[in-house]
């Protein structure tokens, strides 16, 4: 349990964004993505303004852009879908870069790409500037207490379980086994089964350890002092900008 206790997406720092209470950042992210999603889809300038506002926030956080860019790969499957949309959608045809595509599909593909990219980038910024523990504290009171507890346990043992899986792979490979085709699946199935038994038994041990320390169904409060009005007003700058942009885009449509 020596290393790797943070999560891999957290970028250590002390910027204004890092110090901001997690609950403010969570609400700000939620309003920001809602505003982006609600923006009418042909108003491309609106996405540009949203991206500009978000990049100001990224600059304030002092998280390197390359750090965030590398993690944007989670979006890949939907980039593929967005690229395919103009070709598979129906309706009126139009010319785009010399190819005949569906006008509706093209609009939908471009706006999907813009909205998904803004959503992923904003989400990554939250993850990069917020420690998991702070995030859980921010969720307390907003989600059912038991769900927050389950999430806390999951995050706490995420790396332990992941490392167990990695050790099992190293053990297999050090015995000369590397799975390359479906007939090797039974071995991997056993690995998954063994991981379940180990995780479950670990859960039982953790539960007993918690009981021996006086656990009675609730965890001691994680919550830091409530966010001040100043925190909220700073946190809501970005979503307010996005909401204004969305409103303007509706009015100018």
């Amino acid at each position: 349990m020596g290393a790797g206790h943070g999560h891999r997406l957290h970028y250590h720092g002390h910027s204004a964004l890092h110090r901001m209470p997690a609950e403010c950042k969570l609400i700000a992210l939620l309003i920001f993505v809602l505003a982006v999603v609600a923006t009418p889809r042909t108003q491309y300038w609106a996405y540009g303004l949203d991206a500009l506002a978000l990049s100001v926030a990224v600059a304030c956080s002092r998280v390197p852009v390359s750090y965030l860019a590398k993690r944007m790969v989670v979006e890949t499957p939907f980039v593929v879908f967005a690229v395919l949309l103009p070709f598979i959608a129906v309706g009126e045809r139009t010319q785009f870069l010399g190819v005949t595509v569906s006008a509706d599909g093209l609009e939908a593909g471009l706006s999907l790409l813009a909205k998904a990219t803004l959503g992923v980038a904003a989400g990554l910024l939250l993850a990069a500037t917020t420690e998991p523990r702070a995030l859980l504290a921010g969720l307390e009171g907003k989600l059912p207490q038991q769900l927050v507890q389950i999430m806390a346990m999951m995050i706490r043992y995420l790396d332990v379980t992941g490392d167990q899986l990695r050790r099992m792979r190293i053990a297999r490979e050090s015995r000369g086994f590397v799975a390359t085709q479906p007939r090797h699946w039974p071995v991997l199935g056993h690995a998954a089964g063994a991981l379940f038994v180990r995780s479950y038994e670990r859960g039982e041990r953790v539960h007993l350890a918690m009981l021996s320390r006086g656990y009675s169904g609730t965890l001691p409060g994680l919550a830091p002092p409530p966010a001040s009005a100043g925190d909220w007003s700073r946190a809501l700058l970005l979503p307010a900008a996005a909401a204004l942009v969305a409103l303007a885009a509706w009015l100018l449509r």
Partner: protein
Amino acid sequence: MHVPDGFINAPTSIATGVVAAGALAVALRKAGDELDEKTAPMAGLVAAFIFATQMLNFPVGAGTSGHLLGGALAAVLVGPWTAILCMSTVLLVQSLLFADGGLTALGTNVTLMGIITVAVGWGIVKIVTVVGPNSPKTVVAGAGLGALISVPAAAFAFVGLFEFGGTADIRLSTLMAAMVGWHVLIGVGEAVITALTVSSVLAVRPDLVYAARHLLSPRPLEIRTDPKPVTS
């Protein structure tokens, strides 16, 4: 495949959010029956297990590989309500910590991958174990069949949602054929992996497989007394 922001329009996203929240509220109450007061540590560890197994790559050949989604597997191993909690927690953490799946699409993702896969998978396992012979093989077969159908069922539901609140005009038949066809293939992989994993757990710790609990004979607590007490 997590649905990102902007894929499904706002009203549909809110509707799926309400569905997901309602199902989660019921699951939180019912999971207590499956795990009693152990809910938080056990569900947390099982969620970490699901997250880790999703990183276990199963090679398909030609350099490609697939991974488990885990809805049906979780239902078979820990029971449907705990499974819904675990899958939803995994999706919540993936959305907040890994930006995998949009925050506005969280309700959609939980409904599709956390609730539909578990409900369909569990329903089929239940039917198979009631109809089939009383043996561990029936549970394995049920788990495989449940996993096989749960994945295209979620794809089917996605197509339905997209038809209501999608942001592009795609012919329903095209999308249905592509999505469901592709997910039947994924479902075959899911079925094999789920069946293999369940049979592996059944071989070593049958008591940990929720769907196989009826196979174990109950062992009441007995207090054995020494027939000849030692006198000191």
